[in-house]
C-alpha cells in the first residue's frame, strides 16, 4: 500500500514542545535563555544547575506568553494554575525531576480546550502547559563507542510551552500543515522564533484502525514529522495482523535509518509520582490580568480574518488573504470604519488597486488616506460615479494625491441618468454588432455588448445598460 495514500482509521495526536525563545530569561531563574552558540555550561546559575538549597522563581512573562498562545488557540485560561513535579532520573535533568504541570490529581494546567481550524478540519487542543527544558546530552564520537556522556546545562530551565492536541489528525500531511500553522502563529504572537533549531519539537501518538496507540518520540524537526508519521502509519497498517492490537507502546524515531524502533520499557515502568511543587505557590490568574494580557497580544492573521468576517461581513476567502498583510489590513479597517461598507472596501483593497495601495503604504508616491477612499466610495454609493470610473479616479488619486471630489469634477466621471439616451446607445450597438443574436444565451457575448456601450459612453451605468440590453433581447 502506498505511503502517501490515505490509510483507513488513522488517528494522530500531537504533543508539541515550543520554546518561548522571545523570553529573555529561563522559566525559573534569571539566567539568559539565549543559549544557542554559547560555550557549554556558560548560562548556568545555582538554581538552574540544581545546586542544593536553591529555589525556583517563576517568570511572569512566561505566564503571559502562555496566555497569548492559549488565546490564539481559543483555549480557556485557568483561574488558578499550579506546578507539579515529574519525578524521573536522567543526566540531563539537574534535579532528577522536571517542574511541569499536570492535568490529573487536582492539577490545573494553564489552559485547556481550544481548537485550530485547518482548511476542512477542526483540530481540538486538549491542554497547554508550562514546563522547563532539560539540558543537552552529547557524546564524544558515537554513543556506542563512548563510555560516558557529556552534558551541557545551558538549555536546562529554558521555558517550554507544551501543546497537546486531541487525536484529530487523519494523515501525516494534516499534522504537518498544523505544525506549520502553529509555528507561524507563535511567531506572529511574539512568543517564539519557531524557525530556530530545536525551538519546536514534537512527539506523536499514532493509531490505525482502532489498534493500539503508539507514541513516537525523538522527532527532531518538522521535516522529520511527516516522514516519521507516514512510516509509522505504514508500519501499523502492514503489521497490524501480527501484533496484538490494543497494546500501547513507545517507539523512537531513528532519523538515520528512517524507521521507528520499539523502546521496551523496563518492568516497573515509568511512574512519575506527580505531586504539587511545594516551592511554588499556585498562580491566581484574575480576569483583569488575563484581559490585560489579551489586550497586549499581537493579533494573529487567523483571529483577524475571523474578526473581519464577523465584524465587517467580509467574505471568508478575502478576509483570510487580507488578514495576512498587516499594513493593508490596517488600511482596510480604518477605511471600513469610516465608510461603513466592509465587503466593498475589502473588495476594493484586494482588487486591481491592491498592489498600488501596498506600494503606497510602503511609502511610495502620494498617499490616499482612508478618508479619501471612503469619500470615493460614497460617490459610487450616491450614484455619482460608476465603479469603473471610480477605479480610474482612484488610480489618479494615488498618482496625484488629489481628492476624490476634485478628480470627480472632470468630464469622465458621472453617471448618465438619462435612460433614454442610454437606450439609444444600446439600439445603436445592437444594430452594429454581429454577436447581438448570440447575446441572449451567451454571457460572454452579452458582456461584450455591455462593454461596447460603455466604451461609447463612459458615464453610462453598467447595471442600467445591462438591464436595457436584456430587455431588448427578450
Amino acid at each position, binding site marked *: 500500500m502506498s505511503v502517501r495514500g490515505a490509510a483507513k482509521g488513522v488517528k494522530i495526536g500531537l504533543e508539541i514542545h515550543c520554546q518561548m525563545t522571545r*523570553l*529573555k*530569561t529561563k522559566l525559573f*531563574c*534569571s*539566567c*539568559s535563555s539565549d543559549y544557542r552558540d554559547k*560555550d*557549554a*555550561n*556558560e*548560562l*548556568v*546559575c*545555582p538554581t538552574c*544547575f540544581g*545546586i542544593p538549597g536553591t529555589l525556583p*522563581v*517563576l*517568570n*511572569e*512573562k*512566561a*505566564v503571559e506568553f502562555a496566555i497569548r498562545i492559549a488565546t490564539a488557540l481559543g483555549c480557556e485560561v485557568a483561574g*488558578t494554575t*499550579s506546578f507539579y513535579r515529574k519525578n524521573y*532520573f*536522567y*543526566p540531563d535533568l539537574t534535579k532528577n525531576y522536571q517542574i511541569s504541570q499536570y492535568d490529573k490529581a*487536582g492539577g490545573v494546567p494553564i489552559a485547556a480546550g481550544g481548537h485550530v481550524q485547518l482548511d476542512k478540519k477542526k483540530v481540538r487542543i486538549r491542554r497547554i502547559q508550562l514546563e522547563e527544558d532539560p539540558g543537552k*546530552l*552529547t*557524546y*564524544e564520537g558515537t*554513543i556506542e563507542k*563512548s*563510555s*560516558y*556522556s*557529556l*552534558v*551541557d*546545562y545551558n538549555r536546562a530551565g529554558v521555558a517550554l510551552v507544551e501543546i497537546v492536541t486531541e487525536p484529530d489528525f487523519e494523515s501525516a500531511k494534516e499534522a504537518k500543515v498544523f505544525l506549520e500553522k502553529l509555528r507561524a502563529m507563535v511567531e506572529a504572537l511574539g512568543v517564539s522564533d519557531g524557525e530556530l533549531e530545536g525551538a519546536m519539537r514534537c512527539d506523536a501518538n499514532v493509531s490505525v484502525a482502532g489498534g493500539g496507540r503508539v507514541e513516537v518520540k525523538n522527532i527532531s524537526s518538522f521535516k522529520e514529522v511527516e516522514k516519521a508519521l507516514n512510516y509509522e502509519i505504514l508500519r501499523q497498517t502492514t503489521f497490524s495482523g501480527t501484533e496484538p492490537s490494543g497494546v500501547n507502546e513507545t517507539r523512537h524515531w531513528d532519523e538515520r535509518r528512517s524507521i521507528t524502533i520499539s523502546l521496551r520499557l*523496563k518492568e*516497573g515502568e515509568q*511512574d512519575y*509520582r506527580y505531586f*504539587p511543587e511545594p516551592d511554588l*505557590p*499556585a*498562580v*491566581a*490568574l*484574575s480576569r483583569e*490580568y488575563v484581559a490585560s494580557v489579551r489586550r497586549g497580544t499581537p493579533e494573529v492573521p487567523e483571529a483577524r480574518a475571523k474578526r473581519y468576517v464577523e465584524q465587517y461581513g467580509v467574505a471568508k476567502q478575502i478576509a483570510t488573504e487580507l488578514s495576512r498583510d498587516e499594513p493593508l489590513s490596517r488600511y482596510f479597517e480604518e477605511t471600513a470604519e469610516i465608510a461603513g461598507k466592509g465587503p466593498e472596501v475589502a473588495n476594493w483593497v484586494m482588487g486591481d488597486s491592491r498592489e498600488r495601495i501596498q506600494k503606497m503604504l510602503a511609502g511610495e508616491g502620494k498617499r490616499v488616506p482612508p478618508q479619501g477612499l471612503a469619500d470615493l466610495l460614497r460617490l459610487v454609493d450616491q450614484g455619482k460615479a460608476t465603479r469603473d470610473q471610480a477605479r480610474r479616479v482612484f488610480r489618479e488619486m494615488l498618482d496625484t494625491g488629489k481628492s476624490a471630489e476634485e478628480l470627480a469634477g472632470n468630464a469622465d466621471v458621472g453617471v448618465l441618468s438619462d435612460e433614454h439616451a442610454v437606450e439609444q446607445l444600446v439600439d445603436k450597438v445592437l444594430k452594429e454588432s454581429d454577436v447581438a443574436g448570440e447575446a441572449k444565451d451567451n454571457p460572454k457575448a452579452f458582456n461584450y455588448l455591455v462593454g461596447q456601450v460603455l466604451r461609447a459612453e463612459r458615464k453610462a451605468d453598467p447595471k442600467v445598460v445591462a438591464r436595457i440590453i436584456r430587455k431588448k433581447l427578450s
Partner: protein
Amino acid sequence: MTKSKPRITVEDVRRLGALAKISTTATEEEGLRRELASILEYFHVVDQVGDGVTIDELKWDAADLRHDEVGPSDPDGVLKGVPQRKGRLVKAPRVF
C-alpha cells in the same frame, strides 16, 4: 486505594528501589519490608479524614511574579564543584 492493611512485598521494595535508584541486598530486603509495612500500617490513621476536605494551598497573584530581566549567571562557581568534567562539559554515565 483500599483501606485494608497494605500488603507490601519484597517485590514492592525492589520496585521502589528501582524508582528511587536505591538498591537493596537480599538480606536487607526482608527487614526493610517489615519496617515499611509497620510504618505504613501506622499511616493508615489518616483514613479517618474524609475525601471531601479541601486542601489548603498557597496562592500568588500573576502580576506579582518575577520580571523577565536577565541577571548574572555563575558558571565558574557552579562548575568548580563538578566532580568529573571534560572541559566545560559535565561528565555523566552513558545513557542508552
